[in-house]
């Protein structure tokens, strides 16, 4: 009896030390979402957390820390311990775009480790489906003939899609009127009512299915699967096309082991059938990039955006 007790005690002691030295992850992981609950970023983050929890066998806590255009949540992630137990959701705007326009509390190039990308959202240039404009050339022609009369909007003012489209107009020397936005839904209503003639938004799915709108071009790299005939801005020879990514990041200085674990996990999740069904339904594109490739993309986009803000005078 005593013998058995001693044995189990020893076994217990061993397992305890084993747990301490156990490889990542062995404890609850906090995923910070720098936006309020409800948007696509929040929905997909929670989905990723749920799936990653199954794969890694640890609990996830999803924390919404919204405010300051996502600067606050990402900053708290950048300042956390780089142990892999605090990570955050990131999207394009607070990483590669807004830091060029507004001072950010962190440096996207040095303060974060990029864990990997799981999704690209499409940000098409859309118009009413009433036959007035059938191509980007039509839009440019109208804008050049009637300076300032083309009214348009983008869901995120000074976000990537806005700036890419603005760079297109400036490259053509076309003068337009940009109306600041109150979000994608309101802009869609404004487009249908004729308040604006052109919009760059990501939540266009229902309106497209209902035949109310038409896609003229895509502001991110690659074509839009919803409108395979519409070119993207790069193909048309315009200076900017920016990927609107959904991805995960962590504080700088993360151990290689943690990065490798996340490379595997994200790959598994993005290959699952459930993930692909979700992507299809929210009209997004599942697009996996591992940490190394994604870091390269962020660096490239960050530099391109920096040059563009200087060259086209897009900064405030």
């Amino acid at each position, binding site marked *: 009896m005593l013998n058995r007790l001693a044995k189990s005690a020893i076994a217990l002691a061993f397992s305890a030390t084993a747990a301490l030295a156990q490889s990542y992850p062995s404890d609850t992981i906090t995923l910070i979402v720098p936006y309020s609950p*409800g948007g696509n970023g929040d929905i997909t983050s929670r989905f990723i957390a749920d799936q990653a929890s199954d794969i890694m066998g640890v609990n996830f806590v999803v924390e919404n820390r919204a*405010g300051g255009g996502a600067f606050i949540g990402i900053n708290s992630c950048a300042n956390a311990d780089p142990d892999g137990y605090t990570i955050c959701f990131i999207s394009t705007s607070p990483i590669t775009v807004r830091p060029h326009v507004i001072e950010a509390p962190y440096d996207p190039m040095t303060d974060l480790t990029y864990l990997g990308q799981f999704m690209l959202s499409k940000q098409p240039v859309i118009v009413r489906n009433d036959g007035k404009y059938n191509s980007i050339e039509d839009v440019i022609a109208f804008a050049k003939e009637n300076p300032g009369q083309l009214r348009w909007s983008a869901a995120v003012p000074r976000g990537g899609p806005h700036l890419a489209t603005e760079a297109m107009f400036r490259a053509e020397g076309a003068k337009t009127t940009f109306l600041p936005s109150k979000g994608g839904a309101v802009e869609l209503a404004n487009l249908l009512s004729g308040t604006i003639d052109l919009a760059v938004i990501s939540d266009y799915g229902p309106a497209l299915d*209902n035949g109310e709108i038409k896609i003229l071009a895509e502001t991110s790299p690659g074509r839009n699967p919803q409108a395979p005939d519409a070119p993207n801005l790069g193909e048309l020879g315009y200076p900017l096309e920016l990927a609107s990514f959904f991805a995960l990041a962590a504080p700088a200085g993360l151990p290689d082991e943690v990065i490798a674990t996340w490379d595997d996990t994200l790959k598994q999740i993005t290959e699952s059938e459930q993930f692909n069904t979700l992507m299809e339904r929210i009209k997004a594109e599942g697009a996996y990039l591992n940490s190394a490739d994604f870091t390269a993309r962020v660096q490239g986009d960050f530099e391109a955006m920096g040059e563009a803000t200087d060259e086209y005078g897009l900064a405030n």
Partner: protein
Amino acid sequence: MDSVLAGVQLALTWQSIGAVLLGLIAGQLLGAIPGLTATMTVALLIPYTYYLDPWVGIPMLIGMFKGSLFGSSITAILVRTPGTPAAAATVMDGYPLAQQGKGEKACKMALYSSVFGDSFSDIVLIFGASFLAAIALNFGPAEYTLLVAFSLLTMGFVSGAKVWKGLFAMLLGMLLGIIGLDPVTASPRMTMGFLEMEEGIGLIPMLIGFLAVAEVLRQMEYPRKHLATSTVSFSSDPADRRVSWPEFKSCLPVLFKSSSLGTAVGALPGISATVAAFLAYNEAKRSSRHPEKFGKGALEGIAAPESANNAVSGANLIPLMAFGIPGDIAAALILSALLIQGITPGPVVFRDNPEPIFAIFTALLLANLLNLIFGHVLIKVARRVVGVPKRILFPVVLVIAAAGAYAMRGSVFDIQLVFLFGLLGWGLTKMGFPTVPLLIGFILMPILESNLRISMLIAGSVPNPFGYFFARPAFVILLVVMALMLVLVLRRVLKDRQAARAAGLGSG
């Protein structure tokens, strides 16, 4: 007809009914806790609806939204703490009624008004969605500007207190409302360097601070003995515990008017239930024959905001069903849940495959019925809870207020704001400044500013701005109606003043 029946059947399985009920009860309870709004809870639940049958997940969300709007009114009435911003206007007459021992009457009036507003807008949605949505599209930035400017104009005059005090409170609210990113240039403005203020002052910390914390501070002025009593004593007179038919009947005109207003506001994307509640309250008071009773426990003062804020929730689905455009966050969340299930709302689905739409309609009506039944249970429970002595209840309210403000976006800054606004609200009330104009100014200012500035940008983009605006039928009609109403309001203000002077009570 077959598709109607098929749709109704989808939503009348026992799983769906159970889901509505579960959502409703959860919504009522969560709604009663400030900060834990239904919007937030639903947002947290959405990813999981992916794994659920659509006709379990969606009815549950619908139940939750409807339940929370009523649940939040109960705390607004009994402890002056609106569970969600939409119930803030209910505080104005609900809390005084509760203080008179008529808390149960007030809660029941809120329940009947909620269900009335819900049913009204659901019926409009079912029969007139595409028609109303087409009208709503005529409302552009110029029309929004007119609407909001008019609401602010009349507000100052009917606030009840001295006109200058009402105007001052409103302007202070408007000043607070412009803090944040400039709507056109997107550069920070009046944020005093706080990153947390870039998106403006949160409505929830502002409301909780101004209403709940200010009230706790006010109560702390009383002697200690007073704190052993319970906050809300309930009268045992049966007449104070229910809403009689004549009382309900006298509120009917207000109910119809406020529900129509709420439905109209809900059909316009981008204006919230909170705005509708305040507008309805203001209008009920303006058109009342005895406006002096408002703010002291008038049943119409509950009927108006409660029916209006609930009417918004159904009407928010109008642009969603007609064009696939969500009217507010609640509708956007329902849209997400539908999209995750592979259902795209809009005219196409109406034509080709309308069963899901009719199932949603059924769930909406079912939720109203269940809300009416289980609302009574919640009132009974709430009665017990608030029966504890003040010295226990008030600290609990403070803790919940702080936790609720924090929960919204996980920010300690918001807790500090709650107490800051608590002090400000307490101080202003002490000096006799009315609270309503301040809150309305705060809520409406961002809408006014962005729409006015966008209208100006539009004016600059058209060759003939006057021609552009005056060619818009909605703009012209609104302008005429508002000019007429303004004349009426001014005449009334003058008349009141003459009457007061004649009675030798000359008011400032």
